[in-house]
């Protein structure tokens, strides 16, 4: 347990004020999740979900910690974390914008929305702006095809979007900071 706590603390200390209590809380949440699953190795995906939810992304120390607690080889934990698209090994931005590129959204211009954002923010899908404000991601299909094209802003699904409406939202985020 020690290595992560210190590891996270140092990285936190470099960027912002030290947040000792929150680090502990996040570890605690992860520990509770593992205990609830009785440290079963088949619960690895649930544990990784929990870890990502608490920490925002899966940093190497967290993966090591989970591997040790579940008594799994690190290669297995790393293999699973990199196999599934929803797990991120890099920190994400303050705001997230997920553009659905399922077929219905694609036919109705989801691709144009992605290009517009990529151009505006000067990043590619899957990346975060250099100021760590906005992460742009794409989704396979949100199942919101009836209101295509769909975009998820910070977890809230918005339907019938176009490049203008999406850029407006993103600019609003940027002017907030």
């Amino acid at each position, binding site marked *: 347990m020690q290595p992560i706590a210190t590891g996270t603390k140092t990285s936190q200390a470099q960027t912002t004020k030290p947040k000792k209590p929150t680090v502990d809380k996040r570890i605690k949440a992860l520990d509770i999740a593992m205990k609830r699953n009785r440290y*079963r*190795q*088949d*619960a*690895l*995906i*649930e544990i*990784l*979900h929990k870890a990502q939810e608490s920490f925002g992304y899966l940093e190497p120390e967290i993966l090591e910690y989970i591997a040790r607690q579940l008594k799994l080889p690190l290669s*297995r934990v790393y*293999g*699973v974390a990199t*196999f*599934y*698209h*929803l*797990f991120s090994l890099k920190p994400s931005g303050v705001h997230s914008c997920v553009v659905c*590129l*399922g*077929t*219905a*959204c*694609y*036919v*109705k211009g989801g691709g144009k929305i992605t290009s517009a954002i990529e151009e505006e923010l000067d990043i590619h899908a899957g990346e975060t702006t250099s100021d760590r404000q906005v992460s742009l991601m794409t*989704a*396979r*299909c*949100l*199942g*919101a*095809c*009836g*209101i*295509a094209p*769909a975009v998820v802003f910070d977890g*809230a*699904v*918005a*339907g019938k979007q176009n490049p203008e409406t999406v850029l407006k939202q993103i600019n609003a985020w940027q002017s907030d900071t």
Partner: protein
Amino acid sequence: MDLAELLTIADTERKKQKSIRVHCCTSTGCQAANSLSVRENLTNTVKESGLSNRVEVLGVGCMGFCGRGPLVQIDPEDILYEEVTPEDAPSIIDALNGGVAKPLQGDSQHPFFARQMRIVRQHTGKVDPESIEKYIAVGGYQSLYKVLYEMTPAEVVNEISKSGLRGRGGGGYPTGLKWATVAKMPGEQKYVICNGDEGDPGAFMDRSVLESDPHLVLEGMAIAGYAVGAAHGYIYVRAEYPLAIQRLQKAIQQAKKYGILGSQIFESPFDFKIDIRIGAGAFVCGEETALIQSIEGKRGNPLPRPPYPAESGLWKCPTLINNVETLANIAAIIRQGADWYSSIGTENSKGTKIFALTGKIRNNGLIEVPMGITLREIVEEMGGGVPDGEVKAVQTGGPSGGCIPASMLDIPVDYDSLSKIGSMMGSGGMVVMDRDTSMVEVAQFYMQFCREESCGKCVPCRTGTVQLYELLAKILNQQGTPADLEKLEALCQMVKETSLCGLGISAPNPILSTLRYFPEEYQELISAYSLNSQVTS
């Protein structure tokens, strides 16, 4: 809990029902259009206008017409309002007393609704998905009770076989046969898995069923468990469907509380518990062996079959895997009988199928129709056709399916007719494309999808999809030669014949079907290159 108690709950719930019921859709699509505020305002308005004694506002599951949400429907008069805003609430309630409602009144007799036949979606849009009592009030869990006390497991399997139900996830394997295989396997420990990893882009019927009627799926799973001799079930749901997960969790808790799930269900010797497993974004996990790997907490790599999961599945135990929609048909078959069910549909495709009608079409949403209806009826009558222009093709079956040209719209929609023309039923996505859509680009879109979703385990799929994508890109850049076209076709056949699992086997379908029905679009791009190269040389 026994039958008398079940009937008492149903009775009490029905008596509580008020004479006017305002249904407000709270599924993902309508929630994105602010339906929760609509419901809140409607509830407050009813309270303020003192109508609480005869009017109730209910949050319900998907009504299907997702393109025009948020939807509000009022019973018993069956009035439908579309694109309702929270500000419209007072006028809607006022209209109950003879006023004029502000929002657009939809036509509940439109072919989009009138041509449907609802078995799986019978109660969606009418019952509150977060209340087990409401489900019981419409006859819920009585089928489970019936099998436990009136039927032997073999009789249940027999009934499902007789109904002619086939898997709704895409493959179309006879459900009864699958059940019989698992039931026959020796061993104490067996599992039932509900495949809710609806990965096909453009398909959202499973999401809608899970969000709108979670108990229907739980009941189907418990009946399946009894029939095959399993005491433990898993529902594997995509993480992209948070609302479905939340409602399933709630539903399982409610059912446990009533003793409908867990130990000694309905005081019988039958135990059945259900756990939820959440995916993490991998299309290949819809493939049954990959899904089992994922439930075991591993990378979702498919395994060679045989052994089939029915013999050796989850933790090497006999495992029954059925799709959400398949399991959602079970309660109705038990209730109304196999003969009734097999009277619906065509000779080899029985019952109904839910389709997600999306893309360039006037009426977007979910429809449940009897098998054998023609594609033209669905697209033109129910869907209202393309808003400006005409239909060029209909894509069915997602990345595993194909594009059906407008000239073939008169084919009946059933498993065999669709595969005969190089497409497939798939999970039921139907994306309508108009003249503006380039079919070569569509093929490339799907190939990009398969390239990224290939798990990388077998070579034909891992490298084949990359090469197919590159070839398509070359052709689209007007750099392709006639030889590239031949290579494209040969490579498609190779990937199809040598891949390990369904993902690779069906990945070339979008290319093959567009090559077959829209060869001129490929030819045009290729002759553009020959012309250019002649000019430059």
